């Protein structure tokens, strides 16, 4: 009797032959003359083997490659067999799909937009890969200035554009620093162009607000 320790009896074997319980084993690739599956009936006193034209699953012989010795072999065999079980596989695929959708909807940002309207305020929009858009609007009355900040991150210096908000209590203080383009992270040359245009508008806005 073959001492195959792959004792996973599938509740629904792929082939049911006269209601008998079947065990599967796989044929090693180093036996090229044998194709596909060996189909073993375990409950008969002499195991009969039949060859079936059934090549949907890969052919590996765990027994002959030597990893099937001892308790580690049991574990490996069990894991391999459970992977063959379509239920777990489909569950894994489903979880991967859900995770991917979640990543596209919540994490991956495709496009970032900055809209400055002179008398109204500044609006920042981030569009995600799934089409979702998240918007923040800051009124012009709260904006103190737009600056390029530099920061030391690990071994390099990075530049980022940020909006400084006024402090309602202290006239010369800053209550919050809001960075923009956090996902796109443009380089300094782009940031300088953006900065210049923003400063033009802010200067104009300050001029009009001081002479009513």
């Amino acid at each position, binding site marked *: 009797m073959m001492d195959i320790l792959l004792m996973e009896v599938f509740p629904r074997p792929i082939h049911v032959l006269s209601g008998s319980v079947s065990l599967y084993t796989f044929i090693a690739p180093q036996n090229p003359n044998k194709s596909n599956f060996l189909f073993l009936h375990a409950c008969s006193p002499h195991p009969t083997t039949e060859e079936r034209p059934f090549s949907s699953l890969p052919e590996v012989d765990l027994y002959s490659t030597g990893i099937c010795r001892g308790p580690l072999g049991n574990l490996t065999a069990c894991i391999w067999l459970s992977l063959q079980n379509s239920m777990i596989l489909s569950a894994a695929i489903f979880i991967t799909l859900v995770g991917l959708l979640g990543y596209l909807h919540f994490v991956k940002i495709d496009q970032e937009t900055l809209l400055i309207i002179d008398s109204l305020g500044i609006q920042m929009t981030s569009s995600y890969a799934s089409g979702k858009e998240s918007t923040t609007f800051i009124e012009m009355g709260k904006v103190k200035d737009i600056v390029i900040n530099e920061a030391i991150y690990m071994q390099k210096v990075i530049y980022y554009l940020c909006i400084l908000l006024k402090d309602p209590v202290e006239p010369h203080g800053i209550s919050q620093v809001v960075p923009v383009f956090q996902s796109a992270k443009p380089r300094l040359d782009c940031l300088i162009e953006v900065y210049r*245009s923003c400063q033009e508008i802010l200067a104009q806005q300050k001029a009009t607000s001081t002479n009513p």
Partner: protein
Amino acid sequence: MGVCPVVGSVLSHCPPSSFSRHKELLLFFLKPPSMVLKAFFPTCCASADSGLLVGRWVPEQSCAVVLAVVHFPFIPIQVKQLLAQVQQASQVGVAVLGTWCCCRQEPEESLGRFLEGLAAVFPHEPWLRLCRERGGTFWSCEATRRQGPGASSEDQVTLIFYDQRQVLLSQLHPPAVLPDRQVGADPTGTGGLAAVFHTVACSEALFRSDRFDEGPVRLSHWQSEGVEASILAELAKRASGPVCLLLASLLSLVSAVGACRVFQLRPLSFLGSKLSTCEQLRHRLEHLRLIFSTKKAENPAQLMRKANTVASVLLDVALGLLLLSWLHGRSRIGHLADTLIPVADHVAEELQHLLQWLMGAPAGLKMNRALDQVLGRFFLYHIHLWISYIHLMSPFVEHILWHVGLSACLGLTVALSLLADIVALLTFHIYCFYVYGARLYRLKIHGLSSLWRLFRGKKWNALRRRVDSCSYDLDQLFIGTLLFTILLFLLPTTALYYLVFTLLRLLVVAVQGLIHLLVDLINSLPLYSLGLRLCRPYRLAAGVKFRVLEHEAGRPLRLLMQINPLPYSRVVHTYRLPSCGGHPQHSWGSLCRRLFSGELIYPWGQRSDRQD
């Protein structure tokens, strides 16, 4: 007009390599030059007939909020009367802002002069003239100010379209202010957009007349097709008065019964404070009193709280009835009762095995035999008593469970609290073991620390609350050292028993904690607010967002203002109902410290400590 198509220009200035590696950045800079006037125009009036613009002018932000359009023909006196009425009702300065012209082609000269004449009848600075070609997409807009006789200056106008119904019904949630700042009482002071929202919200009086009214003045606004109303809502409002009165009196009766002197007596009040079911019932009673109180909600926050409470109670009762139907169907209670006693027996057996293991050589450690046997036998006898008690109770279990199952109709939270209490009662012996072990261990630790000080020649000065040196006699030192040695060598045994029972107790506490968490979730989740955020996102606004509409050079800038809804996390944070107060009071560090020194831990703060 100074709108530069900046997208192209910025892209051309940046070196192409920097953009090829980045995601798309889009920048729009819109700068109408010099004096800018913002005109908020409702989208519902965009196709209305020509007429007068009526609204509010906010000089600080230089913005005009148009609320409605008064159609020709009208009598100026009646228009002024209507405006005075609205001003009185809403405390908002409503005035005629300008003229609106919507016609097939360019307006003729006579119409133009007629419109000029109107400016003299309704004096207002600045005077707006909006004009739109029917079927065309572009608008023209002028605002004139009269500065001195004959001279007039024109302002540039930015048109901002807004959905009147959404702005009326929405509620702005300003970003969370820091606790050291004061929240301004006047909403107009906090920003231009808040002023717009405030204006529209206060002008309900203006929106009461619709197209089908026979009044002297014809208005166009969001309700001009007919005032929105619902028969069910009206009926509910009428019926709610007497029903609330009746239920409020019933509830006050119930709470009076609950507050009577019998329950203040020692054993019952102690039990009431320990059992979480009583807590939960009291909590729910408060909720019901809030719902059925006859006082009207003063502000939107209170209204939301009432609505959330109603939703929470309804969900609770619905889930409870579901549980009830599940329990009572197919004699599940019988099955449950049949399995309960064997489970309790099994737990007791496992505990006995555990104690036998401890009495032997647990994990290879060598215990002090005599102490081990004493403690082990003591606990074994305790378990034996407990098992006998459980067997005594076994005929009544099914009846008790049946009545407990009935309590689920009061709500799922009540049933869960009862379950937590039952778990606590069934594992009472584990609690007792923990207390014995902890007390013994604590005694030992205290003794050890005191004798250690004696060993070093020091003493604890209770008056000065510090350690002082002290000279002991020889016999004191001798006895002290002996005792110290004894206690030290007995420490591993006691410590092991303490460890094992503490772990068991923590396990039970974890199970109870999970149940309390679930109860807390049902109690405090603001379901109505979440549902509102899902179905009517414009009601809860975190802010606004603007979209630039088609633009043509020489025409005023047009923007569409939409409501930016509140994110779900902020909805939950702002509107969550206060929970029962069953949260752990200690941080992890202090918990570990207390465990190490053997003090008893009470996982939730006891309400009896905080009550007067």
